[in-house]
């Protein structure tokens, strides 16, 4: 199974929305949460439509538009998305509206937009795309489930072009709740110090990233995805070193074929040890990159990692800000992305040079 990445659109807490920028300037924050640098939406969405849309919907639709603009594809055969929490701003609005109005005379807009597949549906509506339309909502495996589905669609010859994407948003309420869970650092910190601030918690993030995938190579494609795997391990019974080795082997490679590993380290001492263990065993000696200091931790941050991998392969450059330890090799042929959530949900993605 494989899919070629034709183009990308990425709205994130960094200046990634402009298509020909590749982390040329890094935006620093002094915070426990990183919000997206949003583009001027009127470049991408009819202002009358945009006024009604929730923020995550605007981010998703704009990221999809940016992605399609450079792809040479107007309407994809399918749209497949992932979101960990969906449209939480509208969900909160409707929840509060129920309470404040004692369930009476409620405006329906926030309820309509609270549905988890709204981003995917709004993109279909904008593009008049009648094709297959799915939304996966499984925590850190949401985007990776969507990617798996896309690869199967190509294997089945059900589609030639697929718009794959992910979106998650932060709201003040969601930060208030997740802070009480101890998910974030206690005090604001500089995002570039994320891995040096030892302790519990990470920094929250958000983003919307889209990819135009095609079934056969065309001139100018950025990279190709050759495999994805998701693993649910509720009781810690899986041997992750073996799982990673097997995943690499099943995709026709050996660990020493991997030129760079993008790890999901997020600065939380409770969970980063999982990555470190893999880095010291199954993937020992392979150059490492981290990305969550740029976009924060959120359920679909794997989409930011795939964007990063695509850009690294297509430009054959690794921005200093992501590279962790060793000098990278001359040519970057294969990148492995490993992300996990609370040692329970794990995912691997293999991205290769076309």
């Amino acid at each position, binding site marked *: 199974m494989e899919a070629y990445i034709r183009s990308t659109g990425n709205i994130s807490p960094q200046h990634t929305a402009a298509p020909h920028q590749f982390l040329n300037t890094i935006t620093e924050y002094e915070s426990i949460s990183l919000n997206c640098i949003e583009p001027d939406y009127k470049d991408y969405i009819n202002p009358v439509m945009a006024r009604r849309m929730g923020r995550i919907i605007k981010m998703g639709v704009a990221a999809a538009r940016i992605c399609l603009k450079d792809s040479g594809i107007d309407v994809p055969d399918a*749209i497949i998305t992932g979101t*960990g*929490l*969906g449209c939480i701003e509208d969900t*909160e609005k*409707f*929840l*509060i509206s*129920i*309470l404040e109005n*004692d*369930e009476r005379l*409620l*405006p*329906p807009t926030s*309820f*309509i*937009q*609270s*549905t*988890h*597949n*709204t981003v*995917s*549906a*709004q993109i*279909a*509506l904008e593009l*008049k*795309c*009648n*094709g*297959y*339309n*799915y*939304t*996966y*909502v*499984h*925590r850190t*495996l*949401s985007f990776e*489930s969507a990617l*798996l*589905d896309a690869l*199967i669609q190509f*294997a*089945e010859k059900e589609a030639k072009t697929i718009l794959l994407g992910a979106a998650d948003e932060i709201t003040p*309420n969601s930060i*208030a*709740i997740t802070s*009480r*869970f101890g998910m974030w650092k206690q005090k604001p910190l500089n995002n570039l110090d994320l891995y040096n601030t030892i302790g519990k918690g990470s920094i929250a993030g958000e983003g919307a990233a889209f990819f135009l995938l095609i079934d056969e190579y065309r001139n100018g494609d950025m990279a190709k995805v050759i495999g994805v795997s*998701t*693993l*649910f*391990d*509720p*009781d810690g019974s*899986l041997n992750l070193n073996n799982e990673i080795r097997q995943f690499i082997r099943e995709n026709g490679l050996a660990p020493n074929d991997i030129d760079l590993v993008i790890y999901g380290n997020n600065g939380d001492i409770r969970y980063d040890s999982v990555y470190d263990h893999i880095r010291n065993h199954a993937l020992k000696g392979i150059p490492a990159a981290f990305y969550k200091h740029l976009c924060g931790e959120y359920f679909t941050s794997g989409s930011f990692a795939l964007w990063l991998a695509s850009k690294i392969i297509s430009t054959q450059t690794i921005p200093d800000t992501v590279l962790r330890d060793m000098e990278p090799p001359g040519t970057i042929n294969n990148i492995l992305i490993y992300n996990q959530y609370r040692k329970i949900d794990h995912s691997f993605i293999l991205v290769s040079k076309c």
Partner: protein
Amino acid sequence: MTNRVFITGIGIISAVGNNVVQVLHSLRNSISGIGDITLLDTVYKNILPIAEVKLTNDQLIKMSGTPHPLKHSRTSLLALIAAREAIQNAGLNMKDNFRTGLISATSVGGMDKSEQFYRDFYKDHSKGRLAMIVNHECADSTEKIAAELGINRFVSTISTACSSSANSLMFGARLIKNNILDRVIAGGTDAVTRFTLNGFNSLMILDKDGCKPFDEHRNGLTLGEGAGFLVIESEEVVQRTGKKVLAELTGYGNACDAFHQTASSPEGNGAYLAMKKALEVSGFNPDQIDYINVHGTGTQNNDLSEGKAIERIFGTKIPPFSSTKAFTGHTLGAAGGIEAVLSVLSINHELIFPNLNFSQQMKELPFKPVTHLMTHVKLRNVLSNSFGFGGNNTALIISKA
């Protein structure tokens, strides 16, 4: 891609029964689950009818046999009960070496607890018991039931509004056909919540008298709750274990109406494309479909749009059809799973369930649903439709094994 996908187990809980036997009894005897609100805390008690599972969370905890009673939302408890029944029905040994996955679906996840949390939280962010909000994510119930049922490695959750669990069955079938898994427990779950009741009420599409699908005077849907799960297995697993097969999942199709966020197109474009695709995948002609378990919510818009789409597919030879939503209510993310279970029961018991509450044919359609229980009907193939917000339309074809 030669692999066939067989249904080997079914499990259900809904307003018309807490298991397959009870549900079948209600459907045979035209006993509807729609009635006054008894459990949900809302100002619409005695004003709006719903189709509740008439068990408190404590009773559901007992029935589910969970060793972690405090960890579950109502959504999760309903799922656990139905999924466990499906696994028992299929006689699964979860310790065998077949690659087994769980794909669940839900529209609002643990919203039943989140909305309780919000009562305290929204005025003071330090208030609200965190135990009430940990269940919020859609994946929460999936992971909890997977862990309790002994499923690891492969889990996923789909949320595409009211087509969610039809989509989880479709994704499960494709994973099996593409040799990624051998066996999938697939379906969906949703508890009734103030959030969804008020949401549909704000859209003014709840019928105060209970839904009347495909009736000229239909006036909206009736909200329901429940869960429906099916065990689907590859041809190879079925052959190697020599197990009894209930039915075959032969066709599936998903398409997007791309017309409006909540309304369906007048000509039923998405519905038409989904049914057409499901027929293509199954290799059947329309005249091989013997019964349609329609989406049939009872809203003005859905039934007209779905009816037009059915007419476009079947022409003048419309197969017998009925909506079972006047029994179960509209169970949102669970509807596709619940109606797939009912389709299996239709085939195995040679029954076509009646479309309750019907009195007058719609003037726009030259056909009407089945209104009385039909028995001894040999059904080769049943088409089951599930349509959702965002124009998300899915059709499944379930066939006699």
